[in-house]
């Protein structure tokens, strides 16, 4: 399996605190993405970082990428109750010359309490 791993599996914090999630992957990549899933729904794209980038920001989100360690982290600053969701990292994987798919990790479940 090419599936990556997120760490921790679950994270509980208070509103206003920062939340950090980590992702490790197995193969070389062109880019890495983070997605969010509210309970029982489909995933929504948050942010993409390319393999030649080390850090990227979008609003309260900060993503870092270390290709030498095959790892990435997602930081959510000043968390809100509405940030409660599961977060997944995704990498591109070539299955054949014609077929490239996104492979998702196992996810981190974030719970933000007020």
């Amino acid at each position: 399996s090419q599936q990556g791993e997120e760490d921790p599996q679950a994270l509980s914090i208070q509103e206003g605190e920062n939340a950090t999630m980590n992702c490790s992957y197995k193969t070389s990549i062109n880019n890495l993405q983070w997605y969010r899933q509210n309970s029982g729904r489909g995933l929504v794209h948050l942010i993409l970082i390319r393999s030649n980038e080390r850090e990227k920001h979008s609003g309260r989100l900060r993503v870092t990428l270390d290709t030498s360690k095959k790892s990435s982290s997602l930081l959510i600053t000043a968390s809100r109750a509405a940030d409660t969701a599961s977060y997944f990292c995704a990498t591109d994987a070539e299955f054949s010359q014609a077929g490239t798919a996104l492979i998702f990790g196992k996810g981190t479940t974030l719970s933000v309490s007020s």
Partner: protein
Amino acid sequence: DVKVTQSSRYLVKRTGEKVFLECVQDMDHENMFWYRQDPGLGLRLIYFSYDVKMKEKGDIPEGYSVSREKKERFSLILESASTNQTSMYLCATLRNTEAFFGQGTRLTVV
């Protein structure tokens, strides 16, 4: 806005039944995917398609097949449903590098 629609939110089927899960997209995307999601295992890729009538096996294709007769529709078929196929099934399309997901089908096989 990209819209990916899965035909059912909830489905209950009996062991041995042939099950069809339908997914339709409205944005003319070439790539479409089927994942299953289970607690503690995350999303696992079952099959994907990069063009009409073209398909590729993902990480866990056993027990499943797919059909893509038209660009906008990608069907996942459980030839003979088993209880270990009880899961959340997610369909997605890809535009450039970004995936767009349907709302998911929670399938229970009894």
